[in-house]
């Protein structure tokens, strides 16, 4: 346990807990990562640190990809990224960070969207489910 460096790399995601339909919300993400560009040398030995960066970030809303970005070696360490989204239905926000080694890490959060009357707008229509049940 002691003296083990960077055992758990942290991922952070901030989504507002609730929103009114039509609002434009900001989603903030941060990943703890060295983002080693592959050009730096160890000052003592002269050995080049191998390249290790996050090269793909995928954002999904209810399982559908809504946002994807390709990163290259110019991105700073511990990259912070935020984007805006229009709130239409409640749902699950998922962010996936993929390394150039293929390792992926992910984080999720739930967004709840209300209409003006204070009713939650679900991504699936409940009426249709009920009607299905009736048929069954």
């Amino acid at each position: 346990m002691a003296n083990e460096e960077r055992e758990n790399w942290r991922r952070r995601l901030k989504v507002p807990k609730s929103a009114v339909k039509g609002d434009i919300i900001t989603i903030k993400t941060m990943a703890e990562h060295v983002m080693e560009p592959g050009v730096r040398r160890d000052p003592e030995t002269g050995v080049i640190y191998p390249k290790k960066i996050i090269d793909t970030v995928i954002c999904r809303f209810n399982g559908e990809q809504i946002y994807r970005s390709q990163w290259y070696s110019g991105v700073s360490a511990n990259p912070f990224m935020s984007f805006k989204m229009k709130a239409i239905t409640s749902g699950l926000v998922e962010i996936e960070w993929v390394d150039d080694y293929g390792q992926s890490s992910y984080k999720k959060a739930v967004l709840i969207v209300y209409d003006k009357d204070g009713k939650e707008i679900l991504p699936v229509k409940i009426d249709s489910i009920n009607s299905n049940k009736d048929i069954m």
Partner: protein
Amino acid sequence: MFFIIKISFVLILVFSFKLLAGEETDSKNFEKPYEKNELKSGSYFSREETRAIEQDEFENPGMIWVERGSELFNIKIGSKNMSCASCHNKDNNSLLGAATFYPKIYKNKLINLEQKINICLKNNMNIEPYLLESNNLLSLSSFITHISKGLPMNVSIEGETEKYFQRGKEIYFERIGQMNLACNQCHDNLAGNYLRAEKISQGHVNGFPSYLMRWAQIASVHRRFQFCNNQARAEPLKIGHSDYNALQLYIAWRGNGLLLESPSVRR
């Protein structure tokens, strides 16, 4: 009547002499380069964008370390199966305000917060102490400092500590390196001016452990001192050296009254 006036006059004279004598004993106290109302934290001198990152709790990358620190604080490890939280919790031994007193005397030796954490891990929890400047130790220390965020710095320089304080003051005014620079030349005399693209701060340590963008990680005060020494082209001491502790004590005392703002973000 006349006598009474005379006596009262004499009394006033005596009293005023006493006051003067009192002032004399006060003047024994050390002079601070900055009065309390002149004290400015490092964030005052940093750029607006940097300050914005620091103040937003999510955008501040230092909070990653604080989060990890709070996890480490609550994990039960070692042969005794103890966590830091089993001794230090809200009810007893709360660490609220603990970070404001460091560096502090422990068994006739001046130590800083990181060293104190290691001593606590070794003696009370019976586990191997972390390496100085390792990620886990910095996480713990930044978490503990973050608990007392917003409280004023309050280090004491009385008693045994005074010896170290004098040594720290000596180091602060000592010219070192190929550049022949002393700390006070920039941080006392030229604070607020530009040094290339950056403003010189007053050199307080209230934001440490702070997130330094140039290294993209949290750094302790001692690592920052090393960097300062490197820039004056002097040979830096080792992290955890007693001279660095003494210097940290002097600098912390200079800024007594400033509010802790760890983890701060600096360039």
